[in-house]
């Protein structure tokens, strides 16, 4: 199989314009005759469904939640980047492109990233027109803040709830289309298989989570916008229902899965407090605008932070990275937090935390200004920890947050399976090996509002799509496979709960495939995961019936998929012996302990082809070539 990225030729800045012109169109009167399935209603799925509905396609939209407004995009706090240069501080599309591709440690496609930077400005305009209440200056202009990995202020925000407001904007647009009848919304539905007919994605099998019925839906194309796989680690900042199932089932039907080892560990999360904890809570990266990160200079210093004088504090990010200081990218901040904790200088009861201190900012700007900027985050921290960040520093530790890897897609956001398009976090395309803060919202909305309307039209207009119905044997086969899997899970009646098995998998992944990885650990993980999978199928306990609301059955199905997927993640991490971005291989580091890339060997996207559970997948390489930027050792010093 050869992977064709379908990147248009010509100068970088003209590629997208030319591609749009060269793409075929679907006549407005014909669009309603074409059905498009969109799975997921986060920023990518919601914006795709609404913009395709506006154009007049017959859109079927699916989500696992009880409402399309609840997808996990809603939890994004800090903001969304755009190259508006409203601050006159040297920003440009070129610079956003450069920062993003450098931030991704030169493991993303130039053309995709440039398009993302171009579209960023349209996103802000569209969202303002929708009534998204972005933060404003006193003169009525949009306000900006800085985020990690950038030396300009280009992040637009709505207090600490930017994801919520952008998602509600997309949701409301989509509900407008539901009212108009162009979008049919199916809530409480979980996609459990992709239906492929004559080599093309033509439908999905869903389970109705209220009645338990399996349902068949047919379409001319399928768009997956089902998010990332961070909950493979059990504890993460993701919502508890976030899962890899839809993407994994598509992978098992032939879609390649790219760069699964590129996982992002967010540096500022509230540390783990107990064994029964169900998730970790992120504190926005924006806090690093004003908060200073430090640990005691001396290992084992257990004094209260207030009793440690400045001379005995190590503001290690400011010391090591003077030009970016506390605003280094996430991977750099996370690795440094781990490193000081490994030195025995971590704080809090567990010793697995660093301080994020607002003392100086409150002194400089006053409590009211800090409250206006971060009030809701401080309140959230207080509720969870029972400590007041206005009077003592926050304790922070890295946690799994975002996954750069995902289903392989070309420039048109189409996977190697014709008709299957993948949007947002679920694809692999734009963030390389590390995503910069405030770029996930940007990518989700760029894909849904501005890319898919063009590329999907081209696919539909240039592809013969013979009429098929849900009576086709491929639907029957897929439904029977789903039914078989559900029956098998229910028939085990063992003694271990899905949560216990998920937690055990998560600990293994965090220990061996987490913030820093080495060959021995990865091999241990690869040996252990199949045993855990076997344990699941021999000994899982799922009481109840398949034909009603059974949350434990839903959960068990997702855990079963993670027990297959985790093996691919670990294998990808093992094969990539270089360090890059969020993937840090201990064997490959510079003398200063920074990630050491190996461009000669690894300047490619690793796209894996499924060959059966427990069978080694086939690796396909998409070579990454850089015409406009020169890959160099990233430096934030």
């Amino acid at each position, binding site marked *: 199989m050869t992977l064709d990225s379908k990147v248009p030729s010509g100068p970088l800045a003209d590629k997208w314009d030319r591609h749009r012109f060269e793409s075929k169109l679907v006549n407005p009167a014909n669009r309603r005759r074409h059905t498009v399935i969109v799975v997921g209603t986060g920023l990518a799925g919601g*914006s795709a469904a*609404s*913009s395709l509905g*506006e154009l007049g396609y017959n859109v079927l939209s699916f989500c696992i*939640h*009880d*409402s*399309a*407004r*609840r*997808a*996990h995009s809603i*939890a994004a706090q800090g903001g969304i980047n755009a190259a*508006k240069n409203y601050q006159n501080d040297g920003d440009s599309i070129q610079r956003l492109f450069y920062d993003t591709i450098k931030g991704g440690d030169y493991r993303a496609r130039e053309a995709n990233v440039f398009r993302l930077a171009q579209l960023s400005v*349209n996103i802000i*305009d569209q969202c*303002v*027109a929708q*009534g998204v*209440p*972005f*933060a*404003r200056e*006193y003169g009525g*202009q*949009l306000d900006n803040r800085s985020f990690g990995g950038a030396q300009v202020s280009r992040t637009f925000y709505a207090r600490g*709830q930017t994801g*919520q*407001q952008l998602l*509600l904007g997309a*949701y*409301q647009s989509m*509900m*407008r289309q539901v009212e108009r009848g162009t979008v049919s919304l199916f*809530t409480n539905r979980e996609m459990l298989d992709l239906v492929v007919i004559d080599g093309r994605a033509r439908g999905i099998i869903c389970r109705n989570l209220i009645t338990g019925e399996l349902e068949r839906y047919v379409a001319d194309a399928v768009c997956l916008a089902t998010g990332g796989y961070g909950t493979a680690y059990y504890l993460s900042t993701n*919502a*508890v*229902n976030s899962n890899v199932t839809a993407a994994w089932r598509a992978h098992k039907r032939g879609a390649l899965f790219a760069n699964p080892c590129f996982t992002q560990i967010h540096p500022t999360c509230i540390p783990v*407090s*107990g064994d*029964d*904890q*169900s*998730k970790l*809570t992120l504190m926005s990266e924006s806090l690093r605008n004003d908060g200073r990160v430090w640990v005691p200079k001396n290992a084992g210093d257990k004094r209260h932070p207030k009793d440690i004088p400045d001379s005995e504090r190590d503001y290690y990010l400011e010391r090591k990275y003077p030009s970016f200081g506390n605003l280094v990218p996430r991977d750099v901040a996370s690795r440094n937090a781990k490193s000081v904790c490994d030195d025995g200088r971590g704080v809090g009861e567990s010793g697995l935390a660093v301080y994020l201190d607002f003392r100086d900012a409150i002194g400089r700007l006053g409590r009211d200004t800090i409250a206006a900027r971060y009030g809701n985050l401080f309140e*959230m921290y207080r*509720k*969870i920890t*029972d400590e007041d960040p206005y009077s003592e520093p926050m304790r922070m530790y890295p946690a799994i947050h975002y996954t750069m890897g995902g289903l392989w897609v070309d420039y048109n956001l189409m996977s190697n399976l014709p008709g299957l398009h993948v949007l947002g976090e679920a694809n692999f395309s734009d963030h390389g090996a590390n995503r910069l803060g405030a770029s996930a919202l940007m990518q989700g909305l760029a894909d849904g509002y501005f890319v898919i*309307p063009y590329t999907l039209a081209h696919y539909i207009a240039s592809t013969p799509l013979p009429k098929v119905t849900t009576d086709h044997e491929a639907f029957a086969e897929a439904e029977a496979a789903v039914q078989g899997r559900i029956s098998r899970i229910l028939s085990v*009646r063992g003694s271990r709960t899905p*949560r*216990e098995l998920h937690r055990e998998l998560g600990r293994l992944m965090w220990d061996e495939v987490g913030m820093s990885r080495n060959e021995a650990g990865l091999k241990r993980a690869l040996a252990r995961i199949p045993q855990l999978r076997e344990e699941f199928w021999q000994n899982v*306990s799922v*009481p*109840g019936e398949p034909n009603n*609301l*059974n*949350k*434990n059955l839903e959960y068990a199905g997702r855990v079963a998929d993670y027990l297959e997927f985790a093996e691919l993640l670990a294998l990808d991490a093992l094969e990539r012996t270089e360090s890059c971005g969020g993937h840090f291989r201990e064997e490959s580091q510079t003398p200063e302990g920074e990630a050491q890339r190996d461009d000669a060997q690894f300047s490619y996207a690793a796209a894996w082809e499924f060959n059966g559970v427990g069978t080694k997948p086939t690796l396909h390489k998409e070579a990454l070539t850089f015409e406009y930027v020169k890959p160099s050792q990233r430096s934030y010093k």
Partner: protein
Amino acid sequence: MRIHLRVWRQAGPTAPGKIEIYTQENVSPDMSFLEMLDVVNEGLIKKGEEPIAFDSDCREGICGTCGFMINGRPHGPEPCTTVCQLHMRTFNDGDVITLEPWRAQAFPVLRDLVVDRSAFDRIIQAGGYTSVNVGGAPDGNALPISKDSAEQAFDAAQCIGCGACVATCKNASAALFTSAKIAHLAHLPQGQVERTTRVVSMVERMDAEGFGSCSNEGECEAVCPKGISLGNIATMNREYLRALLGKT
């Protein structure tokens, strides 16, 4: 801590329900309420019994998925807190805690503590948006919006759609939810074009969904996990009257 739970169990939408009693030992005060329920459910699964069904997702108080009555109060005793952000340190060793689903005609119970809130979506569908298609939006800074207006709009827009306002209201009114969206868009220049049609359409849909009328008791504001102000309902009523009088 030892916690005694009295939990509404109902197998399906048409099945009869009843209160069941469970006791959980070794509850840590640092656990969230939902993590405590996770532990109870783990115990039930181990015994081969069906776990208590409840909704939750983000577990950081922003998605609006979770919510049930705790001792007769939506989301429990802490002000401005969703149940996923409620911690067991709020309770005492030996407490008896009663859990029931939201109860409202427009929110039928699906199972145990899970209810159908799709009526909220249909209210938004009736007009909770600005009718602008993708493409051609003017520059974001072309329309200056005063900081005060943006802040007021934001205060209303942060409603998470959990349904606590309906659950606590003796009339099961959705006035706080509906008014929050109307007020969000009414405070912004982008919302002005459809100001009149929006309020009429959303209020009519709210009534058609079977929610009761607002009688200004203010319980909704008191239990709202996001502190959405009762003032939004006044704004909605004013907008509605204005629309009926045909003023533009």
